[in-house]
């Protein structure tokens, strides 16, 4: 049972344009969501997070939107840069602390074309 789903395995975007990565979840107990970025041969690195009490969180070029009623979140990258090319994982937990288990999606591979 995949509780966190990233239905697009890959995405290709032109440099300077917006990248939108989507994530859906089924567990209504999830109340904290994170995005991780992973380069080849490296571990995932934390990118941005959002609590269920918010519907938007912004950090520089990265913005995460949360639609609780639709159980959907998205990561927007504006403008996209070639260095953003990586695999992006959506993750969710049932508590704000990372002590609560993180459930990861299967990832979306983003390619930003120069």
């Amino acid at each position, binding site marked *: 049972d995949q509780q966190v789903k990233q239905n697009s395995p890959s995405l290709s975007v032109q440099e300077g344009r917006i990248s939108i990565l989507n994530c859906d979840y089924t567990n209504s107990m999830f109340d904290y969501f994170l995005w991780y970025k992973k380069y080849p041969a490296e*571990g*995932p690195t*934390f990118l941005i997070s959002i609590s269920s009490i918010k519907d938007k969180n912004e950090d520089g070029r990265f913005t995460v939107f949360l639609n609780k009623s639709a159980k959907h979140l998205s990561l927007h990258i504006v403008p996209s840069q070639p260095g953003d090319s990586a695999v992006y994982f959506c993750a969710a937990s049932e508590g704000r602390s990372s002590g609560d288990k*993180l459930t990861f*999606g299967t990832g979306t591979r983003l390619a930003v074309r120069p």
Partner: protein
Amino acid sequence: EAGVAQSPRYKIIEKRQSVAFWCNPISGHATLYWYQQILGQGPKLLIQFQNNGVVDDSQLPKDRFSAERLKGVDSTLKIQPAKLEDSAVYLCASSFDRFQETQYFGPGTRLLVL
């Protein structure tokens, strides 16, 4: 600050053999996690330690997998005996404590079981 260290980076073994992975978390981090990432999937938590105590090992296949963190710092994960389906990347992560949002990941150990 030094990141999470893992060794070896790669390991190839035959089924029914044993293998061990080592992780050194970021200095001062009390919480340590082991994840299994099978090709095409997101990381799945195997076990979580708080200092040298186990917080969550509900997804650890205890008939063949074991992990320890004897002095609350380094940790080892062992598989004995290995099966073909254990082929995966094994990621170690650490966080300052259970109530920090950010888990810092090591580069992982890629295991191939033949």
